[in-house]
């Protein structure tokens, strides 16, 4: 069976003042049904661009230069806008980073959750409301019957994120994209939201693409991890394999910087020296070459090819003999 989401050779440019900025270059990976795939990378590595590309909601300044995205066998870029809109919220849903701004401040959450079921003309308003209440209960909102008529500002951040998740799940989507759903929350709330996502996977048959820059989050609930660096996919592996045996120098460096894995006596946080490459540059070498401790001649002269180092474990590095 074909994977649920298949991204093949995706490249996205943003219009820059002088030259285009390459936000994503030649991204290739897929998500199977029922899996949680983590997407890790620094700010600006193209994580959110990828999620918006899947929904075809990129800003007008973005341009898809190459590649295809297939969702359940459907070529998303070939789809007319109307058909694409029918997929959004129905089969692909998204939860955004900041729960403080993803709900309309002037409408009660009940109004918003009923309105979002606009496709179900067959359901009466009361039934839509009942579904909304059931889902609020499912995501752990206490007293959903009373609270459904409250406004977003009457809920805490964690509750609002649960409401956003409930809204995204109203139509039982096949794919849920969660773009840093816990970044704006504190640690206890984060744990609750992650538990919720894990539970949800059991109930619904779909897949989750979890975008994060926190390795701890990914380690906890994902099956597979995709690592982005400067708009390129540098490594992809099952979660245990990636944490036990990272093959790309960037992934190794990233793991070494994870506060959760540091020894207690460390007094300073380790960092990766150097900075992100200029995304406007043409692609002539390894993106990580400038910061890589193992870089050699070839890294600065040639783009590495993706090498399969173990079943389901790919990395793009010259050191792997590619």
């Amino acid at each position, binding site marked *: 069976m074909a994977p649920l989401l298949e991204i093949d050779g995706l490249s996205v440019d943003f219009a820059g003042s002088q030259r285009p900025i390459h936000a994503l270059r030649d991204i290739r990976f897929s998500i199977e049904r029922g899996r949680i795939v983590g997407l890790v990378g620094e700010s600006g590595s193209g994580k959110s661009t990828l999620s918006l590309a899947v929904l075809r909601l990129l800003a007008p300044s973005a341009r898809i230069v190459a590649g295809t995205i297939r969702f359940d066998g459907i070529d998303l870029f070939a789809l007319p806008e109307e058909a694409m*809109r029918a997929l*959004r919220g129905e089969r692909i849903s998204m939860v*955004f980073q*900041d729960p403080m701004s993803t709900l309309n401040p*002037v409408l009660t959450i009940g109004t918003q959750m009923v309105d*979002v079921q606009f496709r179900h003309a067959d359901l009466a308003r009361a039934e839509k409301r009942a579904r909304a209440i059931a889902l609020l209960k499912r995501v752990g909102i206490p007293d959903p019957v009373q609270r459904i008529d409250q406004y977003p500002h009457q809920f805490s951040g964690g509750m609002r994120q649960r409401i956003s998740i409930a809204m995204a799940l109203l139509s039982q989507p096949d794919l849920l994209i969660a773009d840093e759903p816990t970044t704006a929350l504190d640690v206890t709330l984060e744990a609750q939201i992650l538990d919720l996502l894990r539970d949800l996977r059991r109930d619904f048959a779909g897949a989750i693409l979890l975008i994060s820059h926190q390795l701890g989050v990914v380690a906890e609930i994902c099956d597979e991890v995709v690592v982005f660096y400067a708009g390129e996919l540098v490594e992809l592996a099952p979660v245990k394999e990636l944490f036990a045996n990272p093959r790309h120098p960037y992934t190794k460096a990233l793991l070494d910087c994870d506060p959760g894995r540091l020894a207690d006596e460390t007094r300073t946080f380790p960092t990766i020296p150097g900075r992100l490459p200029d995304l406007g540059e043409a692609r002539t070498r390894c993106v990580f070459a400038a910061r890589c401790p193992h870089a050699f001649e070839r890294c600065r002269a040639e783009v590495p090819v993706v090498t399969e180092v173990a079943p389901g474990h790919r990395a793009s590095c010259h050191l792997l003999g590619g």
Partner: protein
Amino acid sequence: MSAPAFEGTAPAPARAPALRHLLADPLGRFGSALVLVILLTAVFADVIAPYNPAAIAIPDRLQGPSLPHLFGTDQLGRDVFSRVVLGARIALEVALVAISLALVLGGALGLAAGYGPRWLDSVLVLVFDTIRSFPTIMFALALVTLIGPSLQTVIVIVVVTFAPSYGRIVRAQTQSLKHAEFILAERSLGAGAARILAVHVMPNIIGPLFILASMDIPVVITIEAGLSFLGFGVRPPTPSWGTVLNDGYAFIGNTPWIILAGGLPLVLSTLGFTFLGEALRDAIDPRLRKEI
């Protein structure tokens, strides 16, 4: 001792805090009272007016204020009080109809400009600014010359001059909301442009827009009176505050009460609606709300 008082006041804030704030403000109370009086006068004008405002009685012309004629009579012996009372109806009719139409038209164009493609925005803003660059009176004179003076002409003039202002405000608000995260979230759940504008953008901008409109009502009343005074508005014998002023103007030397009778309601309605609008704005905007 205080327990019963608490029981009595506790539910009130939950119901209508805006109304409570409005009535707590002395200017708000004064404005609401004036507006209420004007509204009631306009609604019950037929009952209140003691005479037919168009009934001519030459022998009784230019009488001073008396019990049968509270504001005296004009040069044709018509009862000025009756004319002022019925004038309130014309004034409010023009103001409410014209502002509602301007809100609908300007709002729709503003939404289209703010949410639609860039070229549409450019075209609409050009149209808005072109209209706004004309002085209202010049535009009014041109239109009156073209289609003749009437109540409808006044309404058209007001709609055309006010719609661009509302359009610009709605456009600016829509543009800032367009990039709000919750709009992107709605789009990611499959909402189309019409749904986003009607369900999510409109409720966010309607409040301030209504306050603005309520503060424009006296401006429109003044425009109607001004045009009628110049003879470009409602035609005699229809009573309007402007035509009353015009009738009195010729006799200002010996019978000043006609001018006063036509001018006072203008002043009071302007004050009333302005105070009400300002108090409403303070009451609805929590940032301006004074703690009480």
